[in-house]
């Protein structure tokens, strides 16, 4: 498959009409290669979630073209080319953990044996094998989010769309979840489009960080974390957060966000979140 996971060309999205018009996205071009991890980062209102929703076909662009593995966004949604996770886990409270994970499989007519096998596999992957029969309200926020990720992975999609999935978690849980996500991505080989407003999170997880700015929402720059030896070998191991290159990449993203050039080194150890 040579089609990129996501290709967006000249995408505009305008909300409202007349004087109340808001330009959420203006002339956005973006390509995400198969297996690539790309983060969208920017302040509120920069259109990062809107872009993700357009890719997911949860919303339609005003103009421009979005393809997912060479298909229209709509066709890709119907063909289940992507899995999706949101800031709220969106688990159905009356279903068990296993019941939530198998939901997409069940809705698409996968038989019971196959479902059971796949759910066991996914529970293992997210480390929740002991909680198959629990209900979501018995789990912590981090565990609920892991169930949501397992559900997104249920049909082995080659693209994962994640809209601030760790946004509601505490810092400690969040870092652990990031490590988990790196491992899961390595195991599944899926491409990821990841929306966040945490700079270290974006840099740690991504191959490329796409920096966006608001009014109108647009892409202001892209930091390729793999380039410049920013993170050695880009192995994204837990220790990568302490590497010199990590801070350089953080600094670069930050300067793009604030629109002022800043020497990368001064950013070291500073957390502006």
């Amino acid at each position, binding site marked *: 498959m040579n089609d990129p996971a996501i290709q967006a060309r000249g995408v505009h999205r305008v909300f409202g009409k007349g004087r109340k018009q808001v330009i959420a996205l203006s002339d956005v071009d973006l390509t995400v290669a198969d297996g690539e991890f790309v983060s969208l980062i920017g302040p509120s209102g920069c259109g990062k979630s809107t872009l993700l*929703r357009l890719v*997911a*076909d*949860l919303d339609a662009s005003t103009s421009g073209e979005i393809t997912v593995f060479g298909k229209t966004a709509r066709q890709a*949604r*119907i*063909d*289940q080319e*992507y899995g*999706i996770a*949101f*800031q*709220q886990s*969106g688990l*159905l*409270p*009356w279903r068990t953990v296993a019941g939530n994970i198998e*939901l*997409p499989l069940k*809705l*698409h007519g996968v038989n019971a044996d196959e479902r059971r096998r796949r759910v066991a596999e996914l529970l293992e992957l997210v480390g929740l094998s002991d909680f198959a029969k629990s*209900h*979501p*309200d018995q789990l912590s926020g981090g565990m609920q989010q892991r169930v949501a990720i397992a559900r997104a992975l249920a049909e082995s999609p080659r693209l994962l769309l994640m809209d601030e999935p760790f946004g509601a978690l505490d810092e400690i849980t969040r870092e652990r979840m990031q490590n988990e996500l790196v491992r899961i991505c390595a195991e599944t080989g899926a491409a990821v489009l990841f929306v966040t407003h945490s700079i270290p999170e974006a840099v740690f997880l991504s191959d490329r960080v796409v920096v966006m700015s608001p009014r109108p929402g647009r892409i202001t720059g892209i930091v390729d974390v793999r380039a410049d030896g920013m993170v050695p070998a880009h192995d994204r191991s837990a220790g990568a957060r302490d590497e010199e290159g990590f801070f350089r990449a953080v600094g670069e993203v930050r300067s793009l966000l604030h629109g002022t050039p800043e020497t990368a080194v001064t950013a070291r150890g500073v957390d502006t979140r």
Partner: protein
Amino acid sequence: MRFRGIVLGFLGVATVVAAWDLYKGLGPEQGVLLGDTRILPRTTDLAMPHSWEMVQRFGEPVTSLSGAPDAFNAVFDASMFSLGLAARGWLLGVVVGLLLALVMSRFRIVESALLPWVVLSQTVPLIAIAPLVRRWGSEIEIGSHLWTSEDSVAVIAAYLAFFPVAVGALRGLKSPEATHLDLMRSFGIGWWRTLLTLRIPASVPYLLPALRLGAASAVIGAVVAEVSIGLKGGLGRMVIDYAVAASGDPAKPWAPIFGAVAIGLVAAGAVGLLGLVLRPFRLTGVAP
């Protein structure tokens, strides 16, 4: 916990009974007056029979005529008759209410058009619509079934019962969060399967109290409609008949009132059993 609930329930009833008899025993004969306004009732045997007299009355014959049945039997039969009509009305009301809620949740424009009328429907006095229902009903002939007064009563009970069901179910069907709806869309399933997978289960916590309220409304509707339609055999007519005897037999009018309370409890309890069956879906976290 369960045991404590039962004890507290009995204590509540006992308190009401004790308050009644204490006031009757100790209160002034002419009641308590504030200026010319009586704020507490007279305590005469005519106005306030002792609670045990009301209970005793159940064991005595309805009238002094020979062969008259026990008041208990008469009230029991009438209660069952009214309960049956209320149940029919409830079923009809639930079906209509659910259908209305479904259409309203599906089409915004239907909601805007219909919801005000649904609310308005409850402001029309039952007494006013009862003769209309009977007249229109008498024009109806379904197969070999001729419209009866029982049907009219059931329809009027349904008229009261559908309202809480429609409003509660509508709120429940619209309760899923945006994330859940986005997720269903991302699964590529349409409105119908979203309804079955998400909306209906999510509506259960809203639906159960609505069904219970509907059951209570159906009982009231049935009893009042029996009076308005003039249907014999149920509690409604019995309330009127027994009230006539109040001057000579003050405990008697209370018998059908207790009957109405009893069937109200039975109706609400039956819906409560439904709640036990649907217990898993009460865990929604969607409800506040």
